[in-house]
């Protein structure tokens, strides 16, 4: 975004403080546009005025131009957004639109296998900080060179409802697949120095986003510029070479492209970047080595500027670290990951149920809460305000203290909810056992260091032996 101050935006707004955008003042609205939690188009009066009034139309256009992201934002499928980045380092603002992960099928696979892989993509779930992480889409590769078959498989895959990437360098095959599923807004992979004229025609005819591909950055920029000039949405693939000097050069190309787009203000390369860790499967080695190396390449470019990826391994042991890394890198550093302190009821607790305590660091809290839920444990969960720190750090740093525990217990009135006086503290807070007992008068039981083991621990320790 070119503007840095809300004032520059405010100047072009109606300044009526009408609140239609959901904010109290136009100035507050402008501030939210700056941090990208609101869009210019949310100003309904301005959008309406622009339909009739020339001056308003110009203001709106100027605002949209001033506030558009540094890197183009592109939609694949119905609403999967990629790109839209503003900065090179996440602390400078935040990274928008997490790297989209596409997993491959190919059209010479038998239908059963295709269905099996698609189902795995659609069904994959990993619980993390209060929600389930999922995968984004499926890349259909044409290995048959047969337009009818490619179209047939594309149609089948699109039926799963996830965004699709169509992979072929052959214009006839691509045309057949687009005729079958263009309305699903697939991403076309890829226009090259050899086929670009035909692919440009396809992109314009079917109005779909296209990946342009070349490891020669002059050529890549030429292709991007040519497609953009025709109004096509462009993703750039600087070619992922999976090993040796080739991988190092890939890293260089990706960093140079993104840095030149953002710091060098080169709009023609301000496109989302496609990375293809699947290339690791072409390196010699056994399946585990290939899966490992694919994960390494993918991780590298989740951290550094990959906006979309095509991957092969669907093994949970490779998928889980990748989506966790993606969740971490794309966590907004501006918002502390905390939950409300207080008392939570888990699985309808009674007067006899145990009382647990944990911190308000979102990751800790959701882990403990979901572990109790999943294990079917009924209990009371005290959530201590540690300023969003985990157990170990807050005990060491003095945010988790006996005094604060006492305060929380009084505030929540937990003593009235149960007919016992036992508090279960996290294993990592064991050293506070005596102090909490002195402070609260309750008996303190030291629980396991991992809440995943509470079930087994309770079997031995609850109800407590008198």
């Amino acid at each position: 975004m070119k503007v840095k101050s809300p004032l520059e935006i405010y100047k072009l707004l109606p300044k009526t403080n009408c609140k239609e955008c959901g904010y109290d003042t136009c100035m507050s609205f402008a501030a939210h546009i700056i941090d990208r939690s609101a869009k210019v188009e949310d100003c309904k009066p301005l959008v309406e005025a622009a339909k009739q009034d020339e001056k308003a139309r110009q203001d709106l256009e100027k605002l949209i131009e001033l506030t558009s992201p540094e890197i183009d934002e592109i939609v694949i499928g119905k609403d999967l957004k990629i790109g839209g980045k503003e900065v090179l380092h996440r602390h400078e603002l935040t990274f928008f639109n997490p790297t989209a992960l596409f997993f491959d099928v190919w059209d010479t696979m038998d239908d059963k296998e295709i269905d099996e892989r698609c189902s795995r993509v659609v069904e994959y779930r990993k619980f993390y900080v209060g929600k389930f992480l999922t995968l984004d889409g499926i890349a259909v590769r044409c290995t048959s060179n047969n337009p009818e078959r490619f179209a047939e498989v594309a149609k089948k895959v699109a039926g799963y409802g996830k965004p699709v990437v169509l992979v072929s360098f052959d214009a006839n095959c691509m045309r057949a697949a687009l005729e079958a599923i263009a309305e699903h807004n697939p991403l076309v992979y890829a226009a090259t120095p050899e086929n670009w004229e035909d692919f440009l025609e396809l992109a314009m005819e079917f109005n779909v986003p296209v990946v342009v591909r070349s490891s020669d950055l002059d050529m890549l920029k030429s292709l991007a510029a040519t497609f953009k000039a025709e109004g096509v949405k462009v993703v750039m693939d600087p070619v992922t070479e999976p090993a040796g000097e080739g991988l190092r050069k890939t890293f260089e190309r990706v960093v140079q492209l993104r840095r030149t787009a953002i710091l060098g203000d080169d709009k023609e390369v301000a496109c989302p970047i496609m990375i293809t860790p699947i290339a690791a499967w072409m390196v010699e080695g056994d399946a585990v080595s290939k899966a490992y190396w694919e994960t390494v390449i993918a991780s590298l470019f989740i951290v550094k500027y990959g906006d979309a990826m095509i991957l092969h391994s669907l093994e949970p042991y490779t998928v889980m670290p990748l989506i966790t890394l993606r969740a971490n890198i794309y966590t907004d550093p501006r918002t502390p990951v905390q939950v409300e302190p207080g008392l939570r009821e888990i699985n309808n607790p009674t007067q006899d149920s145990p009382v647990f305590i944990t911190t308000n660091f979102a990751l800790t809290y959701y882990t403990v809460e979901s572990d109790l839920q999943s294990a079917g444990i009924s209990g009371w969960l005290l959530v201590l305000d540690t300023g969003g720190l985990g157990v170990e750090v807050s005990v060491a740093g003095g945010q988790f203290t006996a005094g604060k525990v006492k305060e929380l217990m009084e505030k929540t009135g937990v003593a009235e909810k149960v007919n016992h006086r036992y508090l279960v503290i996290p294993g990592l807070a064991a050293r506070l056992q005596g102090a909490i007992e002195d402070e609260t008068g309750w008996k303190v039981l030291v629980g396991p260091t991992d809440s995943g083991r509470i079930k087994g621990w309770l079997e031995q320790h609850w109800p407590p032996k008198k």
Partner: protein
Amino acid sequence: MKLTLEEFFKLLSKYEVEEIEGLRLEGDIEIEIEEGAGFAHVVNEINLAMQHLMNALSMLGAPVSLPGVEVPAAPAKEHKMLLERRFEPFRVEYPGQIQEVQLGATRSEGGSRERVIKLGGEKSLPFYLFDASQPNLPAISIDVFDKPVPLPKAVREHYEDVMSDPAEWAKKVVNKFGADAVTIHLISTDPLLDDTPPGEAVKVVEDVLQAVKVPIIVGGSGNKEKDPIVLEKVAEVAEGERVMLASATLDMDWERIGNAAKEYGHVVLSWTQMDMNSQKTLNRYLLKRLGLPRDSLVMDPTTAALGYGLDYAYTNMERIRLSGLKGDEDLAFPISSGTTNAWGAREAWMKDSPIEGDTPWGPRELRGPLWEIVTGLTLSLAGVDIFMMMHPASVAVLKELISTLGGRKGETKVGDWVGVEL
């Protein structure tokens, strides 16, 4: 170039000139067109050629009232031209440079190491070789403990045979798993464990120095009262070896550790809890108040595991590194990462997910090492210069990536995946 009539008509049809009204040509007529013509040029040539043709035709007695050829302004079937561009990479140069720090000392330097490690020296972000060369690539040290410790199964199985003998353990990590250095943790000194007296604990350090020829790093137990006493003793018995004393923190007697390092020629690991400002403070205390030489300081800004705060660790280290490069002298030091922390994540060691609704996690013996690899590689991109790790496969993979991105590998020919069945 010479055109025959037949070629001429081909040329016309190529540019969609479908008909020249009332024209019939017979016989051999040659038209000359220059080589190297672009489209506009060719159109010109066609017009010229038409003049030739008409002249020729009139000579042959054909009707001369020929209409001029209607050459379309743009071809009917649009032929797009590639917009030719040059990519000019944006150049970045930083004023600062990260301090170079050597671990280990050779005989001629007053120690007994056969190999030493140099950390730091960067003038750019990690692996940005296109900005500046990176003289020292990150090194990997493997953790060894002075008594058996509980470890996740996937890690434990590699060390079970040497766990009761730190010297053998150290040999194994160097000779078998390729460690560049050994970190020996004197955890038995913890008053809550064996409370081993410092004088006795340091015997293990001497044994390890005997057993391996690489630099060593010595850690305490994490006890704030005991560690300064233990590390002081370590500094004394390892005089001249340039070991790294791990660690000095703000809430302990850092002065004692710093002074010992100064007196006996060692390196101090300055450890803070994921906060750039505290890191700056502790570094300043060590450098300015104690006068620790700049080539004797390494920082540990704290490593959180993938999924457990890695985002904080990454961003904290990246900001520290950027500050150093931009000229903040208090932060321009090599960074160390306790990557073994990755094994604290339940995803690394637990048999399967305790959470209902999760897709099964897959075999933990494959999952665990990847957890350590991804934690390490992420932080390598933030600027880590030395990793402390445990799983041999994780060490091998991270080493491979470091030497690849560090430009130490040759070209490898690999085919394209696009149309291949996998």
